């Protein structure tokens, strides 16, 4: 600023300062911030309009639902926002939990329909539990034998899951048995526990196996969580007991509702159990109880709307995105086209990514934050790793696709376009993102926690496992869910590794050629027929975005709930 002659005093006094310029600048900046948001919002409205076609409904239908659902919910939302913020949070979570639960239920239902039977799941889980039991038992019996433990840790899951490879020993056993007139069927290898269970002459019915291997463990985990939070064993047991009772009720209720006992069990586990625990907590704390009105009003409003429209004879809209779209395969005619096989492909790809990328990414983050030396040759190497991770995060996705093509298909000769190749290629793509977000989460654990643990005599690994990881877990989960959201939407790597443009049958093995949601959407985008371009395509986009929205909202809720303050 130029200095002025002192006698004029503060130079703002005689309105030398021009406010207009500053105001205009501020408004321009605000407009720039809003530009991207508003244009994408408009485009989303266009897509949603194409997907749902709300204006194909009678005006009376729209008016009825506006009166029974939209107006009451909007009024409630305004009330929460203005007067009762904790209730708003409760409303948000109680409406969101069932949605996430339904999504998980759908995911597991797809898994059991397409990928493995309930019996295979049962056998898999029992074998894993036995393997875990072996490891624990070995630790108890021979606590000092560290190297032996290493062998047990690696071998016992392999043996229970896959059996032993062919050796002279097997042939010897088989030949001896044959000489004695017995036939074990052991010509090639020792059979694994998993396969033994699959061969059992009698197996429990599907719902018993699901109850034992899915409902009870998750209910147990929830019960343990409640027990720890409230320091009351009774409450924890109550959670387990209630869940089991409600699950068993499904024997009657499932068929009555026409959804089958198995789906009932999944619904109880993934939707009813978390919702029940949360609602009970809200009522007990009596904090934001009014928020519970939101989902109740929503359900009642939809029911009232349904009754009213059918009584008055109003026709509903004819959306592209409907149940048929979600449950059928793609087709040449737009009216029959659906996204189901591609959704199964995406779910299976996510399984591959979670099993491979998540452990490696979190492991790398732990090393870089907790172990990495800052000096010497190793220190240089670690700096190199850090810089490299930063750079990998900026490598274009199409190059990862090329890497997948070169490495998995051309060098390792895995089947082109298979789910495992897609999952690994996209997994490599999100690996740097997972590492960076896990590093941030681990870094945010205060050092005093670690010092306290060391002071108690814990080793570094004990400190990490018992103190650092539990504290950092919400942050790691948030980052991972966001990264998985990125993975679901990635298309370019799928094109490079040759994922199928469209498949009619859902894949049922990880080595099957499959299509994934964005790949399917891309192949619809080259259809010229307007029914595809403005109908099926829009429905696909909305489905993909809805999945992403639910995932991101979950991540944000976890972040807000567990965010370290200060």
């Amino acid at each position, binding site marked *: *600023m130029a200095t002025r002659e002192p006698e004029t005093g503060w*130079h703002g006094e005689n309105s030398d300062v021009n406010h207009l*310029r500053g105001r205009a*600048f*501020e408004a*321009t*900046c605000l407009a*720039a*911030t809003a*530009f*991207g*948001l508003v*244009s994408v919002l408009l*485009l989303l409205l*266009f*897509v949603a309009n194409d997907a749902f076609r709300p204006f194909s409904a009678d005006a009376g239908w729209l008016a009825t639902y506006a009166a029974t659902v939209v107006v009451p919910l909007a009024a409630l939302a305004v009330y929460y926002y203005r007067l009762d913020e904790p209730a708003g949070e409760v409303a948000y979570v109680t409406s969101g939990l069932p949605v996430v639960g339904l999504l998980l239920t759908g995911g597991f239902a797809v898994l059991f329909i397409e990928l493995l039977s309930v019996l295979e799941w049962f056998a898999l889980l029992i074998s894993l539990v036995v393997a875990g039991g072996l490891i624990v038992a070995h630790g108890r019996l021979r*606590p*000092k*034998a*560290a*190297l032996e433990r290493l062998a047990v840790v690696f071998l016992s899951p392999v043996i229970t899951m896959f059996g032993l490879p062919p050796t002279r020993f097997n042939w010897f056993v088989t030949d001896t048995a044959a000489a004695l007139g017995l036939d074990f069927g052991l010509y090639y290898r020792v059979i694994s526990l998993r396969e033994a269970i699959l061969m059992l002459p009698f197996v429990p019915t599907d719902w018993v196996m699901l109850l034992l291997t899915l409902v009870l463990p998750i209910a147990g985990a929830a019960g343990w969580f409640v027990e720890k939070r409230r320091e009351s064993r009774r409450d924890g047991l109550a959670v387990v007991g209630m869940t089991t009772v409600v699950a068993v009720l499904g024997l009657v209720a499932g068929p009555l509702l026409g959804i089958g006992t198995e789906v009932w069990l999944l619904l109880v586990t993934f939707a009813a159990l978390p919702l029940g625990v949360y609602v009970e907590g809200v009522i007990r704390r009596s904090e934001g109880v009014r928020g519970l009105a939101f989902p109740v009003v929503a359900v009642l409003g939809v029911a009232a709307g349904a009754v009213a429209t059918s009584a008055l004879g109003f026709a509903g809209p004819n959306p592209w995105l409907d149940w048929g779209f979600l449950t059928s395969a793609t087709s040449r005619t737009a009216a029959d086209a659906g996204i189901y096989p591609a959704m199964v492909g995406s779910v299976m790809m996510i399984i591959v990514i979670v099993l491979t990328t998540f452990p490696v990414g*979190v*492991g*790398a983050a732990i*090393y870089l934050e907790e*172990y990495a030396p800052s000096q010497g040759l190793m220190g240089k190497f670690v700096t190199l*790793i850090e*810089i*490299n*991770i930063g*750079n*990998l995060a*900026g490598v*274009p*996705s*199409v*190059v990862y696709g*090329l*890497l997948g093509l070169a490495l998995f298909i051309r060098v390792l000769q895995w089947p082109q376009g298979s789910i495992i190749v897609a999952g690994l290629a996209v997994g490599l793509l999100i*690996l740097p993102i997972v590492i960076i977000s896990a590093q941030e989460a681990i870094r945010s654990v205060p050092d005093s926690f670690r010092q306290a643990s060391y002071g*108690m*005599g814990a080793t*570094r*690994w004990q400190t990490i496992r018992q103190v650092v990881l539990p504290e950092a877990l919400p942050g790691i989960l948030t980052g991972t869910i*966001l990264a998985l959201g990125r993975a679901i*939407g*990635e*298309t*370019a790597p799928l*094109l490079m590794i040759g994922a199928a443009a469209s498949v009619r049958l859902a894949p049922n093995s990880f080595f099957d050629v499959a299509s994934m949601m*964005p790949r399917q*959407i*891309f192949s619809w*985008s080259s259809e010229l027929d307007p029914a595809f*371009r403005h109908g099926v*395509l*829009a429905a696909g986009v909305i489905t*993909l*975005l809805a999945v*992403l929205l639910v995932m991101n909202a979950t991540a944000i809720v976890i972040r807000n709930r567990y965010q370290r303050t200060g």
Partner: protein
Amino acid sequence: MSTETPGPDITSRPTGRAARERMYRYVLLLCAAASILVTVSIVVLLARDAITFFTLVNPVDFFTGTEFLISRNVYGLLPLLSGTLLVTVISAVIALPTGVAAAIYLSEYASDQMRSVLKPGLEILAGIPTVVYGIFALVYVTPFLQTIGLPVNTFNILSASIMVGIMIIPMVSSLSEDAMSSVPDSLRQAGYGMGATKFEVTTGVVVPAAASGIFSSFILALSRAIGETMIVVVAAGSRPRMLNLSDPLANLFQGYQPMTAAMVQINSADSVSQLGFTSLFAIGLTLFVITFLLNLLSNRIAARYREEYE
């Protein structure tokens, strides 16, 4: 721990525990080193086929050729580079000023409430899958441009670039905002103490002080635009074309094929000669080198500004 009753486990089994501790350390180190392995395998595997390609096609011809036609075995990179250049320039024209202005607003002007709405909003822009942006461009933006009277083709570089621009706004704005918020408050106070207005402090003090951070965000955003694939595959067409320097405006309304789109097309074509297929890796390696260098440069610049103020 009290001195009279030493814990029984502290010294009794040191060997097993030490071995296990070492094992965890090495397993975790392996995880961290995996990222190096990824980079190495990208370079090695891409270079392997690229070298095969360059033994059959003169690199000079490749990098200076003005025609790209696989069916006639003509491989010139310049048409593909033209497409990439156009997308990068147009999207930069949209995203860089908008992103910086948004960063200024979020860092200097926005109230806490505004920021709590706008920042997650911008994050959402970055989270939308690129194939969706491509569909926006093809199905909604191009017809819109046609209705307002621009002579655009069905596949054109303009609507694709507009969408690329919108996609990279959050990258510019969030990194620039970080740079602006890390400018120490004392600098602002000094500006106010001199009698400067908020506008003058913002444009005269904060932005210049954050310049290196802003610049680094620009480079990162450009690198992202260069590597963007799905938007241009869906909306920019599949014809490699040289820039028409005599009529610059006409360039905007035509379809082009940037490098990334060419890679996708070569890979998904039904019958491609062996040489044509290896050209994929030559283009991929070029793309990788360009983006890798840009990212490295951006990190360097960003590291420098962090040193200045922290």
